[in-house]
């Protein structure tokens, strides 16, 4: 008898996590690149502290998205490299579960990388903890989840493409724009210390984006993998 789907999901997930944390091949470069982006921002703009508060949300989001971009094409990349995708597909596991496993492990990596970057953001831009910090973290999680949903789908899709590293951002970024708007707006509202109700609309927007694209990716994923060779 096949194990419970949740158990299958857990083993798919832990496989990716183990692989990454043993090699640390993508997390470290992503983190250093994120630092670079934050540093370059400091050279590019000379803001007064008040202006800095307005711009910070956007800067943080650019640093996150750019450094995530470095890592996203790696998802499924290892499978491709070692030819283990075929064996994953041969397993008597629902394709949807393979997608969910990949999505969750990508999401975890993204959050770890953002958690590494966040303290530097606070130090570099001289912020202290603001009142709605919990909501700030929630916005980051929601925005990142949408990004992972879209990029996991496209990552599986572009396996046989040349120059995936260039192709991936070209495909993911335009689709991701609404979530960027929502995340930046919500994050900036919270950083400026404005009432949380002003951010509510933007948080709803990200939630809608997440639900729509996670569902769509889940449905389309089945079609995407079937012709893999």
């Amino acid at each position, binding site marked *: 008898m096949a194990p419970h789907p949740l158990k299958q999901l857990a083993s798919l997930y832990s496989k990716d996590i183990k692989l990454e944390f043993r090699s640390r091949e993508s997390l470290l470069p992503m983190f250093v690149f994120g630092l670079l982006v934050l540093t370059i921002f400091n050279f590019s703009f000379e803001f007064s502290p008040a202006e800095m508060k307005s711009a910070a949300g956007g800067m943080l989001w650019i640093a996150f998205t750019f450094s995530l971009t470095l890592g996203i094409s790696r998802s499924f990349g290892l499978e491709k490299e070692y030819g283990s995708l075929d064996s994953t597909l041969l397993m008597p596991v629902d394709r949807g579960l393979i997608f969910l496993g990949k999505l969750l492990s990508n999401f975890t990596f993204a959050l770890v990388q953002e958690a590494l970057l966040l303290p530097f953001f606070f130090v570099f831009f001289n912020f202290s903890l603001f009142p709605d910090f919990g909501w700030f973290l929630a916005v980051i999680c929601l925005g990142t989840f949408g990004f992972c949903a*879209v990029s996991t789908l496209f990552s599986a899709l572009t396996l046989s*493409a040349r120059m995936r590293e260039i192709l991936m951002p070209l*495909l993911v970024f335009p*689709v991701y724009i609404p979530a960027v*708007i929502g995340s930046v707006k919500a994050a900036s509202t919270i950083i400026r210390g404005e009432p949380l109700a002003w951010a509510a609309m933007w948080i709803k927007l990200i939630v809608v984006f997440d639900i*729509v694209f996670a569902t769509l990716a889940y449905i389309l994923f089945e079609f995407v993998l079937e012709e893999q060779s």
Partner: protein
Amino acid sequence: MRERDTVWSTLSYVLFFAMLTSLYLIFLFAPIERTMGHVQRIFYFHVPSAWVAFLAFFMVFLASVAYIMTRNLRYDRLALASAEVGVIFCTIVLVTGPIWARPAWGIWWTWDARLTSTLVLWLIYASYLLLRGFVEEERRKALLAAVVGIVGFVDVPIVYMSIRWWRTQHPQPVFAGGEGSGLDPQMRLAFFFTLAVFTILFAILTRLSAGVRRAEQDLAELDRLIAIKE
């Protein structure tokens, strides 16, 4: 097959004369707009182009769904052809817009809901066209494109809503847009005539483009067969 070709070529001739009529209606028949003057006539190109672009992207979506369901390359050719024509008309919208905006609003560009959404649309479908160059295998390419065609289209309303909350400057629709909307009857005639002309142009261009693609694929297949023979 021949009969259908005759229909299409007749349609092309009809289109030629319809376009001349349309130019007459736009530049000589329709009255001069009171506040904006002659520059308003760009409206007759701007809005129909936008309509064709949206129609084309909707076709990409339908053809993409059809391709995923049937795996018939015919739908992939249709999707690609629509996307090509759509991007061209979307470019026309993005070019005529600023030309009109400069005298009407005093600015070339503003990050308003409709403008920004159109730009994002252009970006989505430009990358849709680009990605086809990155994949070699025909069916793989078609599948990848179909998924992007679907995801991109689903994104459109979300993009639009998000940017609308963000800010809006573009005028409300002049048709059925509530108070103060509506067009002079002569303007309306010029407009709807041009709209019809542009729609026919879209159909003809899409068909031609899909035909070229088909010929290319047939040729590649012949090449392959010859290579096997040798």
